[in-house]
């Protein structure tokens, strides 16, 4: 309910903005979505973007179960992609299938490791994950700049970029369906199952709901923190790897990450932390991203209008979260008062 209200509100504010540019909002939205969902090349682009967005959404949604806010999906995606690029370059003469598998594994591990740094800092020193993941995003940026201008640089191209993945390891879409789509959907379903049906998920949920009861039950808050961040980073890293082998130009270059990691936050919040919910949420965001250039051509609006609508969506969708946080603090205080009456 909350996500729908937030979306409606954001689209209404967006409509006012579009109106102010002298364009009919209904026409603009129709143009945006009809291209993104009904046009062949538009749909290809949309589905292409759904893959990393679902995975980056999961990277935020999983830690959210424990009450951790992973802002570092962007950095984890980038590190996963560059790790995959390095692996693909190292295995450039290996058979394609080997390159693909190793590339994916390296992508997952790289992203997972990157997020685990934040998890370990939190577990060992209590460093707030919002701070550490934001800073790790910047560190990832610097690291990749150096790699693209040094060890991984492809001298053949006039801008900083890695070598392209060898042709045998490239996985173009089949029709309009990108190869990563079934992977992303499966992973979202698997995550839902992990949270609901496994003891790992039970640990996550217990820590998120009552950390005192968790430690009483012998659940290590430190270990679950590191594990959850590790899994989250693995999702983002995998999405970096898939992007590298599945999307043109099959190499790491500037802009590959776009704002995927940050869109992941919007998606996770729209999905209210529900892994399955990331699929429709990612589809919506992907459609808007994919349709933006067409919208600009069709109506003369700046494509950034889509950024604005998405930003407003994030704002509205996080409002109840903020309200709830405040409310929960009050509730906690209330129950404390109630349980310690007379203390």
């Amino acid at each position, binding site marked *: 309910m909350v996500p729908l209200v937030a979306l409606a509100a954001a689209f209404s504010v967006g409509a006012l903005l579009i109106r102010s540019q002298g364009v009919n909002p209904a026409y603009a939205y129709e143009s945006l979505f009809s291209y993104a969902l009904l046009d062949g090349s538009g749909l290809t682009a949309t589905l292409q973007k759904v893959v990393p967005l679902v995975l980056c959404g999961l990277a935020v949604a999983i830690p959210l179960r424990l009450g951790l806010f992973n802002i570092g999906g962007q950095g984890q995606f980038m590190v996963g992609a560059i790790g995959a690029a390095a692996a693909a370059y190292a295995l450039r003469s290996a058979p394609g299938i080997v390159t693909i598998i190793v590339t994916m594994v390296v992508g997952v591990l790289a992203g997972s490791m990157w997020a685990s740094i934040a998890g370990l800092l939190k577990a060992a020193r209590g460093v707030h994950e919002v701070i550490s993941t934001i800073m790790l995003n910047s560190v990832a940026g610097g690291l990749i700049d150096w790699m693209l201008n040094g060890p991984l640089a492809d001298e053949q191209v006039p801008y900083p970029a890695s070598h392209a993945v060898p042709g045998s390891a490239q996985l173009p879409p089949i029709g309009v369906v990108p190869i990563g789509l079934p992977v992303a959907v499966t992973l979202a379903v698997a995550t839902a199952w992990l949270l609901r049906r496994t003891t790992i998920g039970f640990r996550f949920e*217990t820590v998120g709901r009552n950390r005192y009861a968790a430690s009483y039950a*012998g659940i290590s808050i430190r270990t679950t923190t590191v594990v959850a961040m590790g899994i989250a980073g693995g999702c983002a890293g995998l999405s970096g790897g898939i992007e590298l082998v599945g999307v043109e130009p099959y190499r790491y270059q500037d802009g590959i990450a776009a704002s995927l990691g940050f869109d992941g936050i919007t998606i996770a919040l729209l999905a209210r932390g529900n892994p399955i919910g990331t699929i429709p949420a990612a589809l919506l965001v992907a459609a808007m991203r994919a349709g933006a250039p067409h919208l600009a051509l069709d109506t003369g609006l700046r494509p950034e209008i889509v950024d604005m609508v998405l930003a407003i969506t994030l704002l509205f969708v996080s409002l109840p979260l903020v309200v709830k946080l405040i409310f929960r603090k009050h509730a906690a205080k209330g129950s404390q008062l109630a*349980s310690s009456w007379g203390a």
Partner: protein
Amino acid sequence: MTQAESRPEAARGRPPSTEERVLELQGLSKSYGAVHANSDITLHIGRGEIVALLGENGAGKSTLVKQIFGLTRPDAGRIVIKGDSTPIKDPKDAIRRGIGMVHQHFQLVPVMTVAENLILGHEPVRGGIRLDLAAARMMVRELSEKHGLAVDPDARIEDLPVGAQQRVEILKALSHRVDLLILDEPTAVLTPQETDELLGVLSELAAAGTAIVFITHKLREVLAVADRVYVLRRGRVVGTVPTDETDAARLATMMVGHDVILRVDKKPSTPGKAVLSVRDLVVRDNRRLTAVDGFSIEVRAGEIVGIAGVEGNGQRELVEAIAGMRSPLSGTVRLGDRDITRFNAADTNAAGVGHIPEDRERHGIVASYSIADNLVLNCFDSEPYSRHWIRNISAIREHAIALRAEFDIRSASIDATAGSLSGGNKQKVVVAREMAARPRLLVAAQPTRGVDIGAIELIHRRIVEARDAGAAVLLVSAELDEVLSLADRVAVIHAGKVVAELPGDLVDRAEIGRLMAGERPGVPPTDHRSDGES
């Protein structure tokens, strides 16, 4: 204590006349849901008098002062301040009418200086807008000289020791005209030296005419400074006595109660081999002060050992150390032949220890989980409730259905959230969970606190049944009745040590009262005010 004795004799123990009464409570009642936090409380305090509100956690002390300070409204009854019975609207109104309150958790801004903290809310200004810090400093010096509370106006709060922070808090309360000063567990965070200093300050304030109400569960403090003491128990005033007509032992007995004798049907115990052996255990509390100080005890199979004592004598830390939730400083905890001293909570549980925690809401349950999930909180990771990391939902549900019936958990279904249950039913969930695994050792801390009589009977019966089935039970309770009716053996704890072990059926309450107050067995009671317990 010397300060206490320097107080003018006139102020001590003399009941004030009605004209002098600063505060009078008439039939005050306050309930939270089904729990009667305060029932029909009547008390009074006069100018220059120090009154202690003594009672265990949950006795209703904080609720009472919250009403006096306008933080919450009474359901019934009147609060009369200096003859004026207009209801108190809010804390602001209370302050205006001459009431000051020092909260248990300080309300200070850590990064600001003492002077800045004291002027918050009524800052002196110069030329309309400029903050006049010189005036603020002056005010602090005047206040601190007037009341004999030494503080440096320019010190930052976060750099000050806790005792000094509390002085600032008291000064803050006194920066308005205060006829009645309320202190909520003022010594809970203080070291013994700081406590003595505070007690001296209170005596001097009272000598200057301020009426003081202070909340505590520490007998020594009551006897050291208070003129009169009101003893609260389960929301009621169970007695009021001038401190020079009582002693620690009698106060302890009043606190833990002797009105209802709960008799539990049980056969004599037939103890087997030692299950729990605690030797020379030393545990520190959250303030890093020694709470458990060389504690030793043995609990055998088929026996209930009760720990009797006034709350705050190390019981909580003892239980947490045994249950693996707190690392002891030294000493050993053995379960049968295994050394479990360094085990964490999960390993301790796996080794066969069930633990009913003292704080049900905080540790015992996850309020937003279903009853079924709460019932596997301690065993979700083992078969049949999970296999290879996969939770077996049907096993979890069957477990819940069986326990719900066995422990008479009153709920719509096993899918209802634990948070929706009443206190007694929440506690049944905890007890059911901890006893379902048939632990070799059951550690039960305050197993019936705040629950209804029906649940009390059920929980007591289950504990005895567990004993009869061969479990060792360590029972820690603030209710002496509970300890005496359940335990086969009673160990009295004082200042983190066992001061006496007695057979459960041959206990003289007065004797236990003396022991809980820290007296050696067999020694007749002495005047505590001069003797103290230090």
